[in-house]
């Protein structure tokens, strides 16, 4: 499939999801309001828990509000990666469009990738809203941010997370319900990945385990880029680790997904919920 054709399909999926989202008129307005409540909660929590000991455990130049807001806003990229592919399949199974899509000239892998376009764009928008509330009302420090570095971390993070998401979708294709891959990855990542507290406060064995999760590198890199304005050289270890995850997980997930897809075509359960 050539790139122009691929792009057109991604656009078609985006237009579809946008048109569906637009038909629920209030949802977007509520999203903005929800982001405000989230940011305000972190701000007042940070004022309550702020102490010299805590600040020493945080990366240089950051306070707890900035630390927690980045952690909270960017952890969503993992949860969306883990759910976007799953949701696109379950939603299509539920409304009966999966079969109709599968008999078109668009392969399921392309359907998966294109279905994730809208959720990721929406998430990026949500992240911007979170940061905007933080900057406008709660003194979120962005004056030193390395935006290009942050974008690089974000892109390689999405690639690494997408591999995990596709593995999770393969499980869903095969077993339909109860997705332990998703539960395990999101659960372990929220506990060990440093979303709300630095990895350094964990016991040493758990710190080692945290190093096996891409989200740890993603959040570290993002905080360095946004809060400390780290240069590309300083960000390289995080980028390198995330690239390594992507290089291993993307081909592995493709193989697992192809096998799961074939298996469901053999058992006749491809469109079953």
């Amino acid at each position: 499939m050539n790139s122009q054709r691929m792009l057109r399909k991604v656009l078609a999926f985006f237009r579809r999801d946008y048109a569906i989202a637009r038909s629920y008129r209030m949802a977007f307005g509520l999203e903005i309001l929800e982001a405000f409540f989230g940011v305000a909660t972190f701000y007042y929590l940070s004022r309550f828990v702020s102490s010299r000991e805590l600040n020493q455990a945080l990366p240089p130049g950051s306070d707890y509000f900035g630390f927690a807001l980045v952690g909270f806003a960017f952890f969503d990229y993992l949860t969306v990666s883990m759910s976007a592919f799953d949701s696109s399949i379950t939603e299509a199974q539920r409304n009966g469009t999966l079969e109709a899509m599968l008999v078109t000239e668009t392969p399921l892998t392309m359907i998966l990738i294109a279905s994730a376009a809208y959720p990721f764009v929406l998430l990026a928008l949500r992240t911007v809203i979170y940061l905007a509330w933080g900057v406008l009302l709660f003194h979120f420090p962005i004056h030193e941010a390395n935006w290009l570095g942050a974008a690089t971390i974000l892109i390689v993070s999405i690639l690494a997370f997408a591999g995990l998401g596709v593995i999770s979708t393969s499980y869903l294709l095969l077993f339909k319900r109860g997705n332990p891959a998703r539960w395990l990855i999101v659960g372990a990542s929220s506990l060990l990945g440093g979303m709300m507290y630095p990895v350094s406060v964990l016991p040493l064995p758990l710190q080692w385990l945290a190093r096996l999760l891409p989200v740890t590198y993603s959040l570290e890199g993002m905080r360095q880029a946004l809060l400390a304005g780290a240069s590309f050289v300083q960000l390289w270890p995080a980028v390198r680790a995330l690239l390594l995850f992507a290089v291993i997980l993307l081909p592995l997930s493709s193989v697992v997904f192809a096998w799961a897809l074939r298996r469901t075509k053999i058992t006749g359960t491809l469109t079953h919920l």
Partner: protein
Amino acid sequence: MAGRASRMDDNENEGHIPNENCLRHAVCRFLYSDRESRACPWHTCSAVSSPPTVRDRAVVHSELTINMAASALVIEDVVKYFPVPQTGARAFLNPFSPLTHPALLGVSFQVEPGEVAALIGANGSGKSTLLRILATLLVPTRGRARVAGYDVERQGSHVRAQLGFHSATDGGFYDRLTARQNLQFFAAMNNLFDTEASGRLEELTELMGMATFIDSQVRTLSTGQVHRLGLARAMIHRPSVLLLDEPTRSLDPMAAADFRRFLKTQLVERHGTTILFASHTLAEVEQLADRVVLLDRGKMLACDSPRGLRAATRAATLETALERLTPPGFLAEVSS
């Protein structure tokens, strides 16, 4: 590739020259009579004293080898087994249960370009399974199937470019999008450019009588309108082969008659589209089909034109012909 059944050796001994590409006539010869088979120099046995047993037919069909290149659809000894669904602890302990439940047992036939073939059989006879194998939604356990010369298992994307598939059993649309937005989306999925898709959409809107609801959200449409939309979707990329699973199921009698006329005149006669459809309505089959494929519990009992089936069984109607060809109670199950 030669199309020969064991019984045809007799003809060769009598000095007839077999047409190497003429499986269709070989099939017709086996099934005793067909309007086109009379033109075949190889065809010599239009008169048979008594219809063969169901077993005879199945055996001889499975011995046929098929002309893979020229036909629009080739189904060659297709076997499909499903795993037996398990629940509870058994399902947990054995998530990949073996494929033991038979759905198709060695089905072989072919459909020529521009031909309309009907699949008849009771629920569970394997009609939908066969259509889904051809639509690349299922993988056959054994055997081969080709659409417009492309193998459904190995050349799925080529196959999908050639076919349109519609099943009346599911809606399969985005309820909150309009009919037009839905069709535009599926046109893009079939690699149609926006301008091409718009033109095709206008054409189909007129052909399928969708002008009154094309800009309405799908959730506001009636069952019949959704069904018409489904058919329009299957045809949006001008497929050369159309697979339809009970195409007139949710249409009222007038709409169903209109639709059958549309299939026959617009698609088959004007554009030469090949159609394979599953149906429970014998009148529909008789009106549309050039060829009838009779399935019973995964086995093919017969494959011939309605006229051929009537002649073979010396029946006045297709219904009587099917009664004579099938086990007792079959027809009641088909029309239920």
